[in-house]
């Protein structure tokens, strides 16, 4: 009789399990590829762009897409493709920093509110409710319009209006975690509040945080492009997808390529983040309501 080997139970890290689940979802993978490509394009813009985005060529204004200029040129002969590639940098910079700012504030507020409860929780959630009841997109437009084109304000505004979302998600997650046994065990071992918050609770709340952050990148990019379109974001000549579409509008009859391609760039990027975020949510915790 053959001796049967004891079955080996392979220990898998949670990350490996999530990755396996995520990989099965083709659409989410497509989203991830778009997101990765977008970061690459933005970072490697100087290498990838065929022309200098500011280089003016008055002999070739408004040329249609063709061999020399794959996506054509704008009214003063600048290469549209190169400007789109550089435009990715602004949306990436503003989007990423705004989300980081919003997430940081939201995590701190949500952790404190959920963990300590009581009066602190009441105060934080009241402030959150008040922020929640504002039409935040309008607030961003009005404030950005008054403050004028300025990258740091833009990041600040877009970041702040996302905070209530994060606070809600984090607080909810903390509430569901803090009564678990391992938290009790940690406390029994004499861990302080800060240690429990940052070493026990935060790592267990990281899944929802990543999902919300990915999804709100989509919103941040949309808001940035909208503000730039209205002329309240980053001002020309720095190329952004929003201000390219705005300046292309007067040529809508003759040169639609000035509008079509930057718009496709925005839509694809936002689509990528949305698909990626959806896939992450399904892989990490399908019941998560965001």
């Amino acid at each position: 009789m053959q001796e049967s080997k004891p079955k080996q139970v392979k220990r898998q890290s949670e990350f490996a399990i999530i990755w396996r689940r995520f990989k099965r979802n083709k659409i989410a993978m497509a989203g991830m590829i778009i997101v990765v490509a977008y970061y690459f394009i933005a970072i490697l813009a100087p290498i990838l762009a065929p022309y200098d985005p500011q280089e003016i060529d008055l002999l070739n204004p408004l040329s249609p897409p063709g061999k020399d200029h794959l996506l054509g040129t704008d009214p003063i002969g600048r290469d549209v493709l190169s400007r789109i590639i550089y435009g990715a940098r602004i949306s990436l910079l503003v989007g990423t920093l705004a989300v980081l700012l919003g997430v940081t504030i939201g995590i701190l507020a949500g952790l404190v509110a959920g963990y300590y409860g009581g009066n602190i929780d009441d105060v934080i959630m009241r402030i959150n409710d008040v922020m929640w009841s504002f039409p935040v997109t309008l607030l961003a437009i009005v404030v950005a319009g008054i403050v004028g084109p300025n990258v740091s304000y833009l990041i600040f505004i877009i970041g702040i209006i996302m905070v209530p979302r994060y606070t809600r998600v984090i607080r909810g997650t903390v509430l569901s975690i803090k009564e678990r046994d391992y938290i009790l065990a940690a406390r029994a071992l004499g861990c302080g509040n800060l240690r429990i918050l940052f070493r026990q609770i935060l790592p267990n709340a990281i899944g929802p945080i990543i999902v919300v952050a990915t999804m709100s990148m989509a919103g941040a990019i949309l808001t940035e492009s909208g503000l730039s379109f209205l002329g309240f974001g980053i001002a020309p000549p720095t190329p952004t997808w929003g201000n390219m579409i705005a300046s292309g509008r007067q040529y809508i009859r003759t040169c639609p390529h000035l509008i079509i391609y930057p718009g496709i760039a925005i839509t694809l990027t936002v689509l990528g983040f949305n698909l990626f975020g959806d896939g992450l949510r399904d892989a990490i915790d399908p019941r998560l309501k965001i």
Partner: protein
Amino acid sequence: MFRYILRRILQIIPVFIAVTIITFSLLYMAPGDPVMLIIGEYGTHEQYLELRRQMGLDRPPYVQYIEYLLGVLHGDLGTSLFIKRPALDLILERLPATLMLAFAAILFAVSLAIPLGIISAVKQNTIIDYICEFGAIFGVSMPEFWFGTMLIFLFSVRFGLFPPSGWGGLLGLQYVVLPAIALGTRLMASEARLTRSSMLEVLREDYVRTARSKGLSEWYVIFKHAFRNALIPVVTSIGMQLSSIVGGALIIEVIFAWPGIGRLTFQAIQMYDFPLVQGCFMFITLTFVLMNLIIDILYTYIDPRIKYK
């Protein structure tokens, strides 16, 4: 439930105070001296002092704020610096256009989203479902200002079906088609996704199984038993979506030269007409807060299962 409604109404007070504080401080967010921004470098010193007095900037901020608050409570939203008329009058003149656009956009969104969501859910994992789902996530990802511009390009410039911009009065329906589609598409897409997932959840419920096992026809089950319950989260989420509609409406009104409150706000910002900006912002925000309040209260009637602590 009465206590819930009362509490919900009392919650408006801190929101109202926050709205007035933020609106008031818009004046202080401008870089540098707001008076200088408006009169420019060619103004005389007398003009400067006059405008400063007119804007109330010669008094301490807290006095200004209290006066502002008292004014708002009396229905005085300030006076436009350039048009020299009360902001509220200017806003009310543009209210019909904005309401028409908002109504058309929501009508467009809901009348497409709900049938599409139901079909997707009933035909789950078929090609129809995939097309709807992909279309929906695409619709959520498009910036409305680009989509609006593309609609103008396709349907006005190329095919000449609809006027590219302007307003033809409340009966000028051909003018409202493109802006309403541009504004409503995001709402339509997200409501369709929500209707689908909500329907899928409800179709798994015991009472749906019971209804089926009673031998009721599938359509009867879907509409009488499932759909009515699936609609609840869809209705509330329209309230959540209002925020993005309000912001989107401003951009759409600008693109389509639609003479509504959003475009008025935009023009006021461009001219640094601070009282008018404040008036518009205040008006839109308070309307928004009130609409959410109404939706919340209606919600208690739609869904009696929920307990309010």
